[in-house]
C-alpha cells in the first residue's frame, strides 16, 4: 500500500531516476561553469595588482589616506582551520543522511546539527576575514586582487550561507519528525548541494590561498 502511494507521488520516469535528483545534478553542473568563470577571473588577474595590500608579499598601500607599508594579508592558519571544518561538515551530513535512510531520528538530528554548526562557523570565519581585510586597507576596488578575491570568495560564502539555511530548515523538519526514511531524498538533495559547496572550496583554498 505504502509502495503504491510512493508510486503515485513519484511516477516512473523514462530514465528510472528521480527527477528531483536529476534537477539538482543539472544545477550543480551549471554551477561548475559559474565558479569556473570566477576562478578564471581570479587566476587571470593574479599578481597583476599595482598597489597593496597583497596576499603573500609586503607592499606599498593606501591606508587612512596615506601611503604606508602593508604586511601580507592572508592568515593561513585560520583559513586552514575553516577548510578542515567545512570538510568535516561534509562527513557529518553523510552521517545524517545515513541516519535518515535508516529511520534513526536521533542520529539524523545530531549529525545535521553538527553540519549546521560547522557551516555557521565557516560563514563566521569568512565574515571575520572580510572585516579584518577591510580594516587592513583591502576594499573591493582597492586593487585587482581585492576585486577578484572578494567576488570569488564572496559568491562561495553566499552559497555556504544558502546551504546553511537549507540544512537548518531540514533540521527543524527533522526535529518535528517530518523527515521519515521514505523522505530521506529531501536531505540527500540538500546534502549534494552541500558537498558541491565543499568541492568548490577544495579548489578555491589552494588556488587563492596557497599557490604562488
Amino acid at each position: 500500500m505504502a509502495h503504491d502511494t510512493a508510486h503515485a507521488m513519484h511516477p516512473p520516469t523514462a530514465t528510472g531516476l528521480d527527477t528531483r535528483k536529476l534537477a539538482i545534478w543539472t544545477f550543480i553542473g551549471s554551477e561548475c561553469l559559474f565558479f569556473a568563470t570566477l576562478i578564471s577571473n581570479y587566476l587571470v588577474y593574479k599578481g597583476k595588482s599595482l598597489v597593496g595590500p597583497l596576499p603573500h608579499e609586503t607592499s606599498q598601500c593606501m591606508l587612512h589616506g596615506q601611503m604606508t607599508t602593508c604586511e601580507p594579508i592572508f592568515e593561513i592558519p585560520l583559513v586552514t582551520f575553516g577548510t578542515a571544518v567545512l570538510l568535516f561538515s561534509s562527513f557529518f551530513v553523510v552521517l545524517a543522511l545515513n541516519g535518515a535512510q535508516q529511520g534513526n531520528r536521533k542520529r539524523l538530528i545530531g549529525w545535521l546539527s553538527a553540519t549546521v554548526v560547522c557551516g555557521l562557523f565557516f560563514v563566521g570565519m569568512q565574515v571575520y576575514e572580510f572585516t579584518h581585510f577591510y580594516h587592513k586597507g583591502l576594499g573591493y576596488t582597492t586593487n585587482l586582487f581585492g576585486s577578484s578575491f572578494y567576488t570569488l570568495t564572496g559568491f562561495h560564502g553566499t552559497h555556504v550561507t544558502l546551504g546553511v539555511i537549507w540544512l537548518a530548515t531540514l533540521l527543524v523538519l527533522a526535529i518535528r519528525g517530518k523527515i521519515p526514511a521514505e523522505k530521506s531524498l529531501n536531505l540527500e538533495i540538500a546534502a549534494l548541494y552541500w558537498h558541491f559547496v565543499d568541492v568548490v572550496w577544495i579548489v578555491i583554498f589552494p588556488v587563492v590561498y596557497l599557490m604562488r
Partner: protein
Amino acid sequence: MDAQVATHEHAHPKPALYLKVAVILFVMTALEVLAFEVAHRSAAPLHGLVEPLLNEILVILSAAKFALVAMFYMHLKQDSKIFSGLFVFPLIIATVMIGALLLLFAYLRTLHPAA
C-alpha cells in the same frame, strides 16, 4: 524513493568508509599546507625540492580531494552514470575554459606587455 528508482541507484556506503574518506581528506589538506610552508621557508628541509613544484603538488592533492568527495560523499561511485555525466561533462568544459582563458590572457600580455 520508489522501487523504479532503486533499480538504478545502489546502496550507499557504510559510515566506516565515510570516516576513512574524512581522515584521508584531512591528511591531504594538512599535506597541502605543509607543502606551502616548506615552499615559503628557505631553511625548511626539502625546500629546494618542493618550492619549484608547489603548484603541481597543490593541483594533484586538490584534484584527489575533489574526486574523493564526488565519488564517495556525493555517491557518484554507486549512483547512476547519468548523474556522473551531468557532473563530469560541465566539469570538463569548465577546466578547458579556465585553461583557454589563461592561455588567451598570457598571449595578450606577450602582445601588450605593459597592459
